[in-house]
């Protein structure tokens, strides 16, 4: 029997490669394309699993951010299709979300575990408050500082790429700028925590 070669399938795998390349180059528009390609699938899964339309949109957007970050960090290997990966991330996130919502509703906690639970909850609250402060302080930085810090820490770009992206004259300037911006942020945060 003849083997029919699925010409589109080959083209689709190539398309995924192109998408990955575009993400590596920092092209955020490609996320919109991925969003439209995957929203029906995600919507069906979320709605079939006690979710709402807004949850589906949110989960997919979060999954695409995860994809973006992993590609930027070099943690993404194209062993399956991007849509498969996105679907898996959505599933995992949604299962965690459902559990979180269930725990939030459940109030029956053993007295035995109450103290430990309370301490964990307090730690979690403190962490959340600390994060809130840091996020507020980041907003006080200039746009170049925010961009430098995001490129370095979120996308883990090298100094050469950062210099190129932000039109710095050389990598030393980029390195100095990054150091300066981080120090500025640390000072703002420490001031808030005093």
């Amino acid at each position, binding site marked *: *029997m*003849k*083997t*029919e070669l*699925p*010409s*589109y*399938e080959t083209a*689709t795998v190539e398309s995924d490669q192109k998408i990955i390349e575009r993400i590596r180059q920092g092209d*955020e*528009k490609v*996320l*919109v394309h991925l*969003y*439209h*390609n*995957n929203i*029906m*699938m995600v919507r*069906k899964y979320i709605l079939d699993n006690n979710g709402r339309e807004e949850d589906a949109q949110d989960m997919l*957007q*979060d999954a*695409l*951010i995860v994809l*973006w*970050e992993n590609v930027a960090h070099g943690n993404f290997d194209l062993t*399956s*299709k991007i*849509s*498969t*990966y996105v*679907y*898996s991330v959505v*599933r995992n996130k949604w299962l965690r979300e459902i559990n979180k919502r269930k725990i939030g509703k459940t109030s029956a906690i053993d007295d035995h575990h109450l103290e430990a639970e309370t301490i964990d909850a307090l730690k979690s609250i403190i*962490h959340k408050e*600390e*994060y809130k402060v*840091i*996020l507020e*302080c*980041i*907003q006080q930085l200039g746009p170049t500082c*925010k961009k430098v*810090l*995001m490129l370095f*820490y*979120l*996308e*883990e770009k090298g100094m050469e790429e950062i210099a190129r992206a932000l039109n710095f004259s050389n990598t030393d300037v980029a390195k100095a700028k990054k150091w300066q911006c*981080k120090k500025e*942020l*640390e000072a703002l*945060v420490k001031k808030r925590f005093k």
Partner: protein
Amino acid sequence: MLDSTTRQWLDENEVLERHLLNRLTADETDRLQKLLQSFPELADELEFQKMIIAGIRQNGRLELKERLKSNIAQSKNHSSKTFVLYSYLKIAAVVAVLIGVSWIVYSRIAAKPEPAPSADIKKEAPPKELKIEQPKIEKSVDPKTGGQQQIASKKSTGKQNVQEKPLIVSTPSETAAVKHKQKLNIESLKFLKPNELTVSVNILDEKKTLETKLFFKNPTDLTAVNIKETQSEKDNQLEWFYVIYENRILNLYLDNTQYLKVFKNTSLEETSEKLVIKTSSALYTVDLKSKDKFKKAVLTK
């Protein structure tokens, strides 16, 4: 309290930060671990750095998400504008075709030797006006209710295209094949276009091959390994199912209003060794262990 040399080493080499980014060498890691054990204030400093970096990343994610939302909203606006424009163009095209057809038919009728009595007078009037006259045009274009239906069908086609509903095609002979329970063999799957899967079904007794097409909203997907669902039915209609092709599972999403008739009331059962597709009149088994896999879905009853 850390001595100045150690402090210099930590600061100049950005040791704490590089540790959090997993960029230290083995020796540096060892040295840092010892320092962390000896100097609790260093552990606090590390925790602070951890929070700063996590905060920067979280902010980056939030901002990226906001930009993504904004870009999605913009793309939807653009699509809806394109949709409206496209609809108008379609309507304009349909009207233009109808006018063109009417004109051609009218011209042919006008060329006949026997003029209609009342029409003669009208024909003496300027030609342009005659073309616009309703009765002749209507008759010529409307065999029974064909003309009106045509318009309706074009409109509905337009709507269908605009709403992008997948169109499932099935031929009468496929239905006949199911009714007569003939031996069927799924010969091949072809992906010639992004949203279209062509399935070649070989009817063994009649020695002919049918091609049916599945149109679906999403391009073919490979399911993740941990997805257990094999098919989804709603109101006795198959919503989607998967097939196996060349070592990969293809997940096809079908519009739940129309679907391939051969696969109506289909269920799928999967074991590690085989995939069993049951239709209302046939049972196909796909041997997952064989090399050929879905090249041959064997009809077993």
